[in-house]
């Protein structure tokens, strides 16, 4: 008995200091914040031959500024360029640079850096997608540049505000090259990269000389945590202040908890289903239309997003430039679906929906599976890892594929992504792909109603041919400590730390 009491006392003496320290840490004043994400940003120089990806934006969007800034709702505002003009023929953009903007190494940003950024960026792996139709950049004077296009493109400013448009310092690059720039990135952004531990965290420090003024939060830590449960628990107990992309269901639960708020917004991504139209039963238009009519998008939206997402009528998000709001989508109609199926040459062979495993798209696929089985299609779901999924997509080796198609340019031009000749083997291509691609290329040069009408025509072709079934507009979510101001879901998933401040 005596030994037991002594053992318990010893245990208490060990545990009490732990509890005391926890209370002390909670009371400390905060001039820092921690964002927790799954993923691993590591490419901190968008102009490198290896390009950059989605996770890298967490750092890129804060270390670099662009000529134009993409706001959370998808609109553009002046940034490093105070203003710009477009020539009457739509071929030349003239940007007037803000004076006195400095890189974090003290060098002043001038037209030379702009020219360097555009010339190098256009040649890289992202140039074709983000600097569409770019031809040349000409220095007019130290604070004025002209960017010339080979042909007009209404969404070119979107590319200017993208991750590829972050201004880089030419003199610094001349000194350190691609590898050196990647290791120690220099930008004009509100934050500087001060520490990167692969697989663990990234630390950013406020740039006190930022042209917008020093940010309120001095230190931002991006914690890299793969396990979603750990992220949730960490947000709840205060280890983390902001959590990227919690599920809609989790957002609902966070909203009932004290101390945590959420923000939900439309993303630039659209979730669609691509149907095979070049081989097997996919070549049968009646079969494709049967699948199209059998899909109840509301049920999918409820299952995946608790109904929070916007249903898409066409394969273009409403926020995209050139969105044709006059086109009506295909209604859910089981009777019509069965009628199409009866007219088709379907013989009961399995119809496989491919998706990435462990994601919400697997849920999309399973709900679709149930809907297709209801009309008499023997449907299976094949959930594969990301690499296999991409490989199948590239080789067009699928019956149907759930796709998350994002658009960095926030423009209807992205409707042509699936029909770009360089992307896929020409022998496994949509029958009218060349026609659609040619129309999309033409659409780049148009403006106003003419442009909207043309994209409307493209969208109608996709509906008539049932090449794709648009489901819903993607959503971005963020959960955060209620005492942290300025946190907002951004359409491209950016986090602009310069807006954050503690109450």
């Amino acid at each position, binding site marked *: 008995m005596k030994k037991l009491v002594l053992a318990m006392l010893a245990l208490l003496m060990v545990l009490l200091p732990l509890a005391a320290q*926890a209370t002390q840490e909670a009371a400390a004043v905060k001039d820092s914040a921690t964002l927790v994400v799954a993923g691993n940003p590591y490419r901190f120089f968008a102009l490198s031959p290896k390009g950059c990806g989605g996770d890298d934006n967490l750092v890129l969007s804060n270390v670099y500024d662009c000529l134009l800034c993409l706001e959370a709702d998808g609109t553009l505002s002046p940034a490093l360029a105070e203003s710009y003009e477009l020539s009457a023929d739509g071929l030349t953009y003239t940007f007037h640079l803000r004076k006195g903007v400095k890189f974090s190494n003290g060098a002043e940003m001038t037209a030379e850096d702009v020219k360097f950024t555009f010339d190098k960026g256009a040649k890289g792996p992202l140039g074709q*997608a983000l600097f569409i139709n770019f031809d040349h950049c000409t220095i007019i004077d130290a604070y004025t540049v002209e960017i010339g296009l080979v042909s007009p493109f209404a969404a070119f400013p979107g590319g200017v505000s993208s991750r590829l448009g972050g201004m880089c310092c030419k003199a610094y690059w001349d000194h350190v090259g691609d590898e050196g720039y990647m290791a120690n990135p220099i930008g004009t952004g509100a934050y500087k990269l001060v520490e990167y531990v692969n*697989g663990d965290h990234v630390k950013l420090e406020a740039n006190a000389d930022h042209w917008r003024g020093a940010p309120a939060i001095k230190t931002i830590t991006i914690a*890299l945590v793969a396990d979603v449960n*750990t992220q949730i628990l960490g947000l709840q107990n205060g280890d983390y202040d902001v959590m990227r992309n919690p599920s809609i269901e989790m957002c609902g639960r966070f909203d009932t908890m004290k101390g945590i708020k959420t923000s939900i917004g439309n993303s630039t991504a659209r979730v669609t289903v691509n149907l095979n139209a070049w081989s097997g039963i996919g070549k049968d238009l009646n079969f494709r239309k049967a699948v199209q009519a059998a899909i109840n998008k509301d049920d999918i939206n409820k299952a995946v997003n608790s109904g929070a997402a916007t249903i898409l009528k066409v394969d273009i998000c409403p926020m995209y430039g050139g969105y044709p709001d006059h086109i009506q989508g295909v209604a859910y109609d089981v009777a019509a679906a069965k009628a199409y199926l009866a007219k088709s040459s379907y013989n009961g062979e399995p119809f496989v929906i491919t998706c990435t495993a462990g994601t919400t798209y697997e849920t999309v696929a399973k709900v679709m599976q149930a809907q297709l089985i209801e009309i008499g299609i023997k449907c299976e779901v094949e959930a594969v890892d990301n690499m296999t999924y991409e490989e199948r997509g590239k080789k067009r080796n699928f019956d149907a594929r759930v796709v998350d198609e994002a658009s960095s340019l926030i423009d209807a031009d992205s409707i042509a992504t699936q029909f770009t000749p360089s992307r896929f083997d020409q022998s496994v291509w949509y029958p009218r792909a060349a026609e659609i691609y040619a129309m999309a290329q033409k659409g780049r040069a148009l403006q106003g109603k003419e442009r909207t009408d043309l994209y409307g025509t493209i969208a109608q072709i996709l509906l008539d041919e049932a090449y794709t079934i648009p489901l819903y507009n993607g959503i971005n979510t963020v959960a955060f400590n209620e005492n942290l101001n300025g946190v907002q879901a951004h359409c491209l998933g950016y986090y602009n730390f310069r807006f954050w401040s503690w109450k």
Partner: protein
Amino acid sequence: MAHLPCFLKPSRRRAGVNWLKYALKRLVLLVPVILSVTFILFVILSLAPGDVARMVLGQDATPEQIAELNHQMGLDRPLIIRYVNYMVDALKLDFGKSWTGNFDVLSEFSHRLPYTLLVSALALVFATGLGIPLGIASAIKQYSLLDYGSTFVVMLLFSMPAFWLGTMCQIFFCLTLRWLPVSGIASWKSFILPPIILGANTLASMIRMSRTSMLDVIKMDYIRTARAKGASNRDVIIHHSIRNSLIPVVTQIGISFAGTIGGAVVTENIFAIPGIGTMLINAVKSRDVPVVMGTVIFITIIVGIINLIVDLICAIVDPRIDLAS
């Protein structure tokens, strides 16, 4: 000869030479193991679907840019040539750079290995420090409340998967009590829960193994003889039973340590510890061949050395084991 220091006595020198020969033989035998494992792995990774260059550059890269990156990575060469080139470089301790990260494989592994080893070692200390005494006590007090209690604990620990136990402990200790951080490596408190979770299964094995082994030993004739000669219960247990009962336990410790290094993947994932487990999983997902190959080679060597050490310790504990044969 009687005046020679013990380590220079012929019998000791012979034993020392035997140990050295045995150790060298075991290390040499690691080479075909490493070659077999790496070749099989290399083939599997090379044949797995996925275009690494396209994944790195993105969907909008031109075919020329993808071909250029494939060429830089050496992916346009035949599989055998690539494997041979890789192993030749590996002999020169050049394990290459990650294809999907911006790091050198050897230096990244060196940076991450201490975390995995620390968590694994702490897990082992936890499991053996608690498991062996508990197992021995259960055997000595067979059919008592302690014995039944420890059996129950063993069943519980075997039944609970690490990912579930880890999350439950996070909810209780981190969220409810707020005593410990949820994840990371920021402070010493971050290294309390992960070893406990990682070592839970090993703890159950230790309790069971120690109990079984001890029960076998205390039923032996020489133990009965010792008691008959008047040795106290304490002397019987400490001087006669424990050392003999530890022989299988020592073997189990070695196997468990190797197992915890492999099993650290789940724990590292839950607690966001930047160890080699998470590095390996991410590399496999992204078909990052240099990282996978390098990590597997290092792990094979580490496990091989651990097994060797365990065998040598067994030889010390059990004088019946003759390394020369």
